[in-house]
C-alpha cells in the first residue's frame, strides 16, 4: 500500500480573514508543499430552487436575484430572458441597450470587488482600498440607473423597469471618464509592481489543457487562453461587436489582469450603448406562457445557465440553475491548490479564482 507522509493537516475557514463567505479548505502539507487540498462546502445551502418551484414568475424573479448578491443583475437578466424566450416576448431596442448597461455596471463592480479581495489577500492594502473606492463610484452609477445598490430588480419581462433620465446619463458618462483614468492607473500599478509580481506571477498555474478538461469558465478560463464567453451569443452584444479578453499566462496575475481588462472593456461597452441609445419606449409588455427552455448568460464569474419549465399561468414548474463558481472551485481545488508550492499561496490562489459560495450552494 502506498502511504504518504503528511506533516500537518491545515484547515482554513469557515470564518477566515481572507474569505468573504464561509468555505473550508482542508490542506495536507509536507513542509510548505501542499500535498492535497479539499474544499468543503455546505454552509450556505438554503434550497432556493426548492422554494422557487410552483411559484409565479413575479416571485421567482426576486428569488433568482437573491441567488447571488454580488452578481444579482445577471441572475435577473438570465431568468427574465429565459421567460421571454419561452413566451416569445419582444424587447424594445432601448430596453435591450439599458439591460446591457446595467449588466456591465454589475460586472465592473463584481470584478473590482474580486480584485480588491485578491490585493487584500496578498496584503497590498493600498491598492485594495483604491479599488474598493472605485467600486463605490460604480455602485453610485448602478444606483442612479436602477434605484438600488445591490438587489435592484431592474429587468422585467418585455423591457426594463424605468427609463434612464438625461441627468443620470450625464452622471454615468462623467463617472466613466473618471473611472477610466483611475482604473488604468491602478492597472499599471498592478502590472509593474515588483512585489505584486513576486506574489502573483507563475503562482497557481492553470494550463489550457487542465482548464478545458475541467470546464473552467469565465475569467479563470479566459486567463488560460480559452476563448469562450456567452456574451458572444447574446443578440445585443452581437450588435455591439463584442470580443472577449483572453490572456495566455494562466497564473494568478493573468486572472486579475483579465478582470482589469474586462472592466476597461465594460467601460467601452457602456459608452457605446449610451451614445447610440435608440429612442422609444422601455417596456413593451407581454404575457408569460407555458414552455421549457435552457438559457445561458455570462455572469461576471462565467457561464450561468437556467433551465426552466413553466405552465400556462406563468408559474415555474421546474427550475435548475447552474452557476459558474462550482466549475471554478473544482478547477481550483484539483489543479491549483493540490501541488501548490507554498501553503501561504493557498488563500491567494483560491481568491484569484473569485469563488462565490452563495451562488454555488444556493
Amino acid at each position: 500500500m502506498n502511504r504518504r507522509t503528511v506533516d500537518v493537516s491545515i484547515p482554513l475557514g469557515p470564518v477566515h480573514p481572507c474569505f468573504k463567505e464561509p468555505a473550508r479548505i482542508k490542506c495536507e502539507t509536507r513542509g510548505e508543499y501542499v500535498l492535497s487540498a479539499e474544499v468543503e462546502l455546505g454552509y450556505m445551502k438554503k434550497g432556493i430552487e426548492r422554494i422557487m418551484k410552483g411559484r409565479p414568475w413575479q416571485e421567482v424573479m426576486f428569488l433568482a436575484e437573491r441567488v447571488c448578491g454580488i452578481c444579482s443583475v445577471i441572475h435577473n437578466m438570465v431568468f427574465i430572458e429565459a421567460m421571454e424566450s419561452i413566451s416569445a416576448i419582444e424587447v424594445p431596442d432601448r430596453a435591450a441597450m439599458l439591460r446591457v448597461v446595467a449588466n456591465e455596471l454589475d460586472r465592473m463592480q463584481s470584478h473590482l470587488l474580486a480584485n480588491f479581495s485578491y490585493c487584500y489577500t496578498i496584503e497590498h492594502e493600498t491598492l485594495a482600498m483604491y479599488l474598493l473606492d472605485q467600486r463605490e463610484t460604480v455602485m453610485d452609477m448602478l444606483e442612479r440607473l436602477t434605484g438600488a445598490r445591490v438587489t435592484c430588480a431592474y429587468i422585467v419581462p418585455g423591457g426594463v423597469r424605468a427609463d434612464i433620465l438625461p441627468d443620470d446619463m450625464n452622471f454615468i458618462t462623467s463617472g466613466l471618464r473618471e473611472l477610466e483614468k483611475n482604473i488604468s492607473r491602478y492597472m499599471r500599478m498592478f502590472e509593474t509592481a515588483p512585489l505584486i509580481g513576486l506574489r502573483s506571477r507563475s503562482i497557481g498555474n492553470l494550463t489550457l489543457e487542465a482548464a478545458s478538461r475541467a470546464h473552467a469558465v469565465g475569467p479563470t478560463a479566459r486567463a488560460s487562453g480559452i476563448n469562450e464567453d456567452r456574451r458572444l451569443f447574446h443578440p445585443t452584444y452581437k450588435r455591439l461587436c463584442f470580443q472577449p479578453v483572453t490572456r495566455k499566462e494562466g497564473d494568478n496575475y493573468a486572472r486579475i489582469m483579465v478582470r482589469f481588462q474586462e472592466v476597461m472593456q465594460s467601460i467601452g461597452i457602456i459608452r457605446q450603448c449610451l451614445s447610440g441609445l435608440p429612442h422609444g419606449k422601455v417596456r413593451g409588455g407581454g404575457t408569460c406562457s407555458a414552455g421549457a427552455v435552457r438559457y445561458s448568460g455570462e455572469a461576471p464569474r462565467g457561464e450561468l445557465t437556467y433551465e426552466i419549465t413553466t405552465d400556462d399561468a406563468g408559474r415555474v414548474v421546474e427550475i435548475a440553475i447552474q452557476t459558474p463558481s462550482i466549475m471554478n472551485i473544482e478547477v481550483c481545488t484539483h489543479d491549483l491548490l493540490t501541488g501548490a508550492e507554498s501553503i501561504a499561496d493557498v488563500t491567494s490562489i483560491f481568491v484569484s479564482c473569485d469563488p462565490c459560495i452563495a451562488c454555488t450552494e444556493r
Partner: protein
Amino acid sequence: MTLLQKIKNIVRSRSIHVCYVDVGSCNGCDIEVLACLSPRYDIEQYGIVVHNNPREADILLIIGAFTPGWEDKLRMVWDRIPAPKAAVAIGNCPVSGCCFNRPGSLVDPPVSKHIPVAASVPGCPPRPTEILSAILSIAPTVFRDYEVNQ
C-alpha cells in the same frame, strides 16, 4: 465608578473589533459590510477594525438566515469571543429569513433562537451607513460599565 472603569469605558468606545459570519445569505449583505471598509465610509476612522477573527472580536455581525451547516458552529464562534461582546444581525435574513423563509427551504430563522442578538439592522441589504451607525450606537451601550454591571 473607579478611574480604571472610566478608562475602560473610553478605550472600549474607541476600539471596536468586528468579526462577521455569514450563516447563509445571498452575500448581498456581506459585500455591504465590506463596502464599509472602503475609503468613502472608512470604518476605521471610528476605531472599528474588521479582523474577522472571533478570538479578538467585540462585536459579531451575523448575516444570513441560519442554515443547518451552522447548527453547532455558530455557537462555537460565539463562545470563542471574549466578553464583553454583542451580536448584531445585519439584514432581513437573521431577523425573519426574508424571502428564504418558505415551506420547503432549509433555513431556520431567526438567529436569536441560537445566540443572543443585541441589535438588528433590517434591510435587503441595509446601506453601509446604516451598518456603521448600528455598530457605533450598540458598542457604547453594551460595553459601558461592564465590570460594574457584572
